[in-house]
């Protein structure tokens, strides 16, 4: 059967392989995508490819020539396969690039879209109150609360202000049309909670008392008739004025941050003695002096003092065994200072454009 075939020799095989290789190279380069390349691969190096057919012609060679000619074919196949690999990688990269380009998305179309689900906002006063609570909780205080409508006893008498005591004039009181005239009122400060706490619990007491208070004040930029206060009370054995000053200072540093300090100066409150006003370094200008602090470098925050023995007597705490201190200040006022509100009345407007700033 072989006698009819064209005699073969190594050069003829080599020539044929070179031609097949050249043709294959052209077709590999021409493949436009991976699918086409797979088809080209089949026809160039597959079982029925020219190269495979060329291989069958080795049989016609003299045995001593077969090895050289086989090596020629093998080399051509190796080079084609390498080229196929390179081409496949190139096409793959092209295709990825095309896909990436097609999938391009402007994420700011989403981030700026009006339909974005809106998060709600806690009121500035709530945020301030919770920060204050958290600060005191970290200092070992509990948080206590009490009613907003109180009797004269809790708001005044138990706090060392008997009827007609001139100090009652410090607070313009809103009375309720309940009970005897003047008996039931809206608390003018959170101090009634102190009384309730001491009535209901044996010392030691370490508590802060936040809540809403009321005064018959005409609203202005710094006052609203409805406002919020936080008050602290410590009753224990051996509590001193030094403890009060140290607690105020520890709070000041913890809440306002390093560099903000406190100072006390004598003042008067019926329910504490000695009494003090406490000021803190202006948190806006860090004590340099600015509009908020009227150039003084200090902001008056609140009042404090040692619990008056008359208050202890009213609630049945032995003032020879226990001593204590109390302090209090306005939450809204603090929020006003920290957030730079020019007018406190904005807190009550509930304008969404204001609420969503915080």
């Amino acid at each position, binding site marked *: 059967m072989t006698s009819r075939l064209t005699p073969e020799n190594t050069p003829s095989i080599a020539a044929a392989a070179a031609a097949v290789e050249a043709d294959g190279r052209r077709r590999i380069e021409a493949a436009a995508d991976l699918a086409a390349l797979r088809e080209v691969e089949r026809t160039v190096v597959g079982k029925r490819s020219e190269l495979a057919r060329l291989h069958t012609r080795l049989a016609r060679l003299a045995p001593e020539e077969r090895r050289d000619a086989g090596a020629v074919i093998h080399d051509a196949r190796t080079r084609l396969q390498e080229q196929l690999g390179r081409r496949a990688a190139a096409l793959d990269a092209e295709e990825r690039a095309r896909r990436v380009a097609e999938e391009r998305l402007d994420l700011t179309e989403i981030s700026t879209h009006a339909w974005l689900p809106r998060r709600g906002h806690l009121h500035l006063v709530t945020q301030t109150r919770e920060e204050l609570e958290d600060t005191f*909780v970290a200092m070992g205080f509990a948080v206590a609360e009490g009613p907003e409508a109180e009797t004269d006893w809790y708001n005044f008498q138990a706090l060392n202000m008997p009827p007609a005591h001139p100090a009652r004039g410090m607070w313009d009181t809103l009375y309720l*049309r309940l009970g005897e005239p003047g008996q039931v009122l809206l608390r003018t400060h959170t101090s009634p909670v102190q009384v309730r706490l001491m009535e209901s619990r044996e010392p030691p007491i370490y508590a802060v008392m936040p809540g809403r208070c009321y005064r018959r004040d005409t609203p202005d930029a710094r006052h609203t008739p409805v406002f919020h206060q936080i008050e602290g009370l410590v009753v224990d054995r051996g509590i001193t004025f030094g403890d009060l000053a140290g607690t105020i200072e520890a709070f000041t540093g913890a809440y306002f941050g390093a560099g903000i300090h406190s100072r006390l100066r004598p003042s008067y409150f019926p329910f504490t003695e000695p009494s003090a006003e406490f000021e803190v370094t202006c948190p806006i200008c860090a004590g340099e002096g600015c509009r908020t602090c009227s150039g003084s470098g200090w902001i008056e925050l609140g009042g404090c003092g040692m619990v008056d023995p008359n208050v202890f007597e009213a609630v049945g705490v032995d003032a020879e065994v226990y001593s204590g201190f109390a302090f209090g200040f306005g939450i809204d006022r603090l929020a006003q200072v920290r957030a730079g509100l020019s007018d406190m009345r904005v807190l009550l407007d*509930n304008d969404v454009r204001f609420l969503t700033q915080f």
Partner: protein
Amino acid sequence: MRAPLSWLRDYAPLEAPVDDLAATLSALGLVVEGVHHVGGGLGGVVVSKVLGIRRHPDADRIRLVDVDAGNGEVAQIVCGAWNFAEGDLVPLARVGAVLPGGMEISRRKMRGEWSDGMLCSASELDIPEPPGSADGTGPGLMILPRGLAEPGAPLADALELGPDVVFDLDVSSNRPDALCMAGVARDLAAALGEPWAALSSGSVLPPVDRSVGVAPITVEAGDLCPRFVGTVFEDVPLGASPAWIARRLTLAGMRPISAVVDVSNYVMLDVGQPNHAYDLDRLGGGGILVRRGAPGEILETLDGVSRTLGPEDCVICDATGGAVGVGGIMGGASAEIGPGTTRVLLETAWFQPMAIARTGSRLGLHSEARVRFERGVDPEVAPWAVERFAALLAAVAPAASGGRTLRRGPSSDVRDDAHMPAPAVVRVRTARVNAILGTDLDDGDVAGLLGPIGFRAEAPEPGVHAVTVPSWRLDSAREIDVIEEVARLWGYGRIERTVPAARGGSGGLTGRQRDRRFVRQALAGAGFDEAWTSTFLAPGDLERAGLDPAAVEVENPLDRSESILRTALLPGLLKAVKFNMDRQGVDVRLFEVGTVFFLPGEGRVTPEEVEHVAAIVGPGPATEGAGAVRGGAGGAGGAGAVRAAVLAWSYLAEALGISGVSLSAAAVPGMHPSRAANIVAGDGALIGAVGEVAPEVRAAYGLGGRVGYLTASLDALLGVARRRRQARDVSRFPGSDVDLAFVVDERVPAAAVLATLREAGGELLEAASLFDVFRGGQVGTGRRSLAFRLRFRASDRTLAEGEIAAARQREIDAVTAAHGAELRG
């Protein structure tokens, strides 16, 4: 309280720098609110006389003023003030003057007209303005007294404004002793370690002249007025006081009037004794009767107001019983001294502080005397005050008496010791001082701090002081009061700061406080902004909101619109939504956690207070269109707002992990009759309500679109059983989804069908939810199709086909039986 430094220096050297004096005053609790340097910086400021006022040709709010600047020189000044007239004397800052605030005056053109200087207000010159002279409504020039000086005279000379400093002090109500110069100086001198000495009246003090006689003084109300000292003065000077008295009064904030009145005021400011000078010739019977008011008795006080008195009030009368003043508060018009007064009866009395406070507040009558008496005047200062009055008046006399010599009679001192405060001797323990203050003082320190402010400490035994409290410190009667004085003089700033080790108790929020925060966080997370609405409502607000009008009323509201306490958050939130809608608010969603008040229960006087949580969804495009219930059966369009409210509830319930709570269609006050449900706990307790606000309610609050609302009692909400925080294994086996659609009557709640599915599904039913509602078509009127997706899964195996089919059939049977439902094909 305004304290001129020159006046304080009558009592102590006080030579420290002004800043140090101010800091010392503040540290003593006499808080310095302002320091005015007066008389300095007035070079180039002269007295000028207004000759003419002309329109500015090119401006409406400023005018051209021609003034006589002295020596016949006429200057044209451009001026924006309107409170003066031709002939007035006003301060002129000439070109080149530098005002106390640092402003340099130059010749300049204003709107095309030259101004050769500036006419000044008192505040521009840093001169304290007498009260009442500026109404605070706008800028005004300082109008100088007529005849003060010739035009051109330096202002500082004309006003005798040598450089001085005025401290503006905030004196707390427990320190009436510091409402006078002697008292302020005493504290200051003590803190500075300087000697304090009462002024010696010396040779100017007129001797007591027995020929003058004594006015009869009768005190019937010894409990209200325990001490009344009356002294007669004859041939009192007429006319104005000398400039130095007028100036000190002006600096202290009072307006000079006439010699006798000025000296009376001066004595009050000097030694703290409010006093009253009556025209003796206008006092019927030539004497004084102090009695209680008769019921309904009427007296016209100096301010021109008729006051109705009563038996609680102390009335000063002439000897015939005719009222001439409200004791210790304000005199009457009838016996007031006038230009013709020559004989004066001086009252230097002591009134019961509580009585003064009661009468003062009942009459709404405020005065310098009341402020001092109700806080507690020194009961022993009267004789000194009489001496000061006599000496000052005598010093005035040569200038103003027209050659007559002031004569002073003996004082009549009517005193009811039973009602006078007894001098307090307080036992003070050094150990107690240190225990309260955290100091380490010894006996000598304590006595040494107290002595200079008049607290005499004797030591009957080591560690214990017997402290005699001075008569001017009525506020100090207990050991703790004296300890406060020790602290004040030692200096608050010197007390070492310590932090108590919180023992025994433990800090932290209660579970309820944590849960309340969580409720707030959840609602904010659901897209609601937190509002804070007023506790007060206007009458009618509750009715307009469809709610029971019974509410607690405020006895003395600031405004009628704030006269009742809210029983619900709804009215306030509706107002807040309206406020925002009026400002083009879109998608307004608010929530609030706040207290509401109900009338007291049986046997109580204080209102019942309940904390509510509420959320409101305002009208807007987001709620009107999107999410509307499909099909619109019975006109059920525009369900966006109510849908958002119900979603808020579901979100909140899921966040809190509460279980066993259901929505039960109900008539809820203020809510849409067919779009509201009560929120009911598993045990039947009412937690709150959710739905759409009734159309008439939102219309009453001016809201055009539909409004969704959710309300709950916080305690009821937090009282509901919570999902236990207990881990449950999740199955590793595949689940199977089964969709079932049932046609049920409109009145059958979807939640009821779902509950039936959950019950019938048993353990194999992992999840079930409603995913489609369809009305119309084959379904028929009054009915709708509810499509549920059920997921069955077992924890230990893959479910077999048969098991799933059986489960599916159980569900169909259960729903069909329980709700008259038909499976939709």
